[in-house]
């Protein structure tokens, strides 16, 4: 191996390509590619993010904070937190169960099952809301029964939670399934043969192996659960102070031309998105460190 190649191997990522004459682009190519790529990034992604905060503070900090402590705003925050607090744990349990069944056992129809789990990702949010109206609505399958028993599903909190569960359904499962499939079942089988119970094996062997992917899935699932608009909009009925989540409340304020207030509530959701991205980047970094350490052993 030449000295240049050894040096090359120590460089990571972009440096590796720029240090090598065969993969280094001319200066003007770099300028044009980065110029076009970053312009696209700025006008479609960075500016909207900045705009949220600029518009939120356009009428000053007083307007901003008073918009956030409105009772309707607080009840929207509460409902958003409630929907996420129900949807995320349920989808977490589902993700673990599905990944355990798919990764540790062989059965017929496994690929079909994996495809079906991904299905909610390709369904329009509006259709996701509509299906619960068809099932639980006044003219729906179970609607009349619930109306007779004085239980409100549609245009009430239960439908909002159901729609949220639907749109976030695959998030955790799809992070866990490929990872657990790749890890196989040798470690778990060893634990069982050494006398560990099923639960002990799961908690002490499986969970530590998948914790970063699990956290990653939970973070993304939570962001979508708190931010869902279309599906929730169909089933909510938009009753102020009762069935408005934060995204729906943003829409109401916006349509009432209360732009500063709309952007103030939106800025909370944008902050949530930024925290999500920061956590996600951290988890990716930790997970990649594990891979590097694993390769070193």
């Amino acid at each position, binding site marked *: 191996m030449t000295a240049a190649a050894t040096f090359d191997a120590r460089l990571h990522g972009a440096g590796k390509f720029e240090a090598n004459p065969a993969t280094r682009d001319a200066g003007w190519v770099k300028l044009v590619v980065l110029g076009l790529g970053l312009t696209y990034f700025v006008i479609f992604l960075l500016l909207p993010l900045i705009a949220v905060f600029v518009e939120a503070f356009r009428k000053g900090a007083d307007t901003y904070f008073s918009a956030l402590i409105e009772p309707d705003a607080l009840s929207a925050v509460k409902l958003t937190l409630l929907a996420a607090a129900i949807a995320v744990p349920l989808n977490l349990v589902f993700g673990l169960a599905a990944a355990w069944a798919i990764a540790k056992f062989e059965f017929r129809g496994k690929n079909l099952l994996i495809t079906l789990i991904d*299905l909610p990702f390709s369904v*329009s949010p509006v259709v996701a809301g509509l299906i619960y109206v068809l099932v639980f609505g006044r003219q729906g399958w179970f609607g009349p029964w619930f109306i007779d028993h004085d239980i409100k599903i549609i245009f009430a909190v239960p439908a909002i939670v159901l729609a949220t569960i639907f749109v976030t359904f695959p998030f955790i499962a799809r992070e866990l399934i490929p990872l657990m499939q790749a890890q196989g079942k040798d470690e778990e089988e060893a634990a069982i043969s050494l006398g560990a119970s099923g639960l002990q094996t799961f908690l002490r062997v499986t969970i530590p192996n998948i914790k970063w992917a699990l956290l990653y899935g939970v973070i993304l699932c939570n962001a979508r659960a708190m931010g869902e608009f279309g599906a929730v909009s169909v089933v909510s009925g938009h009753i102020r102070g009762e069935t408005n989540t934060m995204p729906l409340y943003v829409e109401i304020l916006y349509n009432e031309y209360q732009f500063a207030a709309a952007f103030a509530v939106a800025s909370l959701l944008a902050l949530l998105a930024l925290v999500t991205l920061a956590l996600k980047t951290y988890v990716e970094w930790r997970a990649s460190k594990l891979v590097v350490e694993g390769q070193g052993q």
Partner: protein
Amino acid sequence: MSASVNKRVLPGFGLSLGFTLVYLSLIVLIPLSAVFLKSSTMTWNEFWTAVTAPRVVASYRLTFGAAFLAACINAVFGLLLAWGLTRYTFPGRKLVDALIDLPFALPTAVAGIALTAIYAKNGWIGSLLDPFGIKIAFGPAGVLVALVFIGLPFVVRTVQPILEDLETEFEEAAASLGANRWTAFIRVVFPTVLPALMTGFALAFARAVGEYGSVIFIAGNIPMVSEITPLIIITKLEQFDYRGATAIAAVMLIISFIMLLIVNALQAWNARRFGRTV
């Protein structure tokens, strides 16, 4: 497959698979089947009239046309951005890389009002284009802008890992055989990233077709001009036209299933080539 497949050492197969199937059926399969069962109560003529009304057809044209164009824009610029992020060092690279996923994390309603604020006549970008008579917000171009935003991460994130893992040897070989950088890119790099690029394109397209939240704020929602198909479903629901809404939803669902199959096929193609999924 080894012999141990049939002897299940690990516990919990029945419980985990049983729970998975029950939960999947209750949350996803049974409610989705309602769309087709409800549609089947209509006669073929009723169904056909509902899904081919002029206003609905105009919405298909806009939804699929804008989704296709947005996916094309995202494919071209996403590839450039992925190339820039993997091949070049520049200040702020890590920050740009981390922010790429913003459209996945930012609620669509927030994206919608923010894009409207920027691309409206008095907005940061809208005011630059207005003197030239170019109107973005409150028209079909606004729909395109929103769909570019929500589809932005797909191509970058599918192409990026392939570019990162690409060994420098291939391009070294191309260079030593006398190829210039452009030829090496077209003949060596591009064919390698093509399956990932197409997967990203298909994912961005599928997402854009069903998108609602970010579009309705910026579209202006003018019937026959800038009204997307998901909005027509909502309008019909608000008029208690459940059958009409369901018929259009059935059309959208069938298209979703087709897109899902295409994406699966593209991912299988990619996996066969590189032994990995994207």
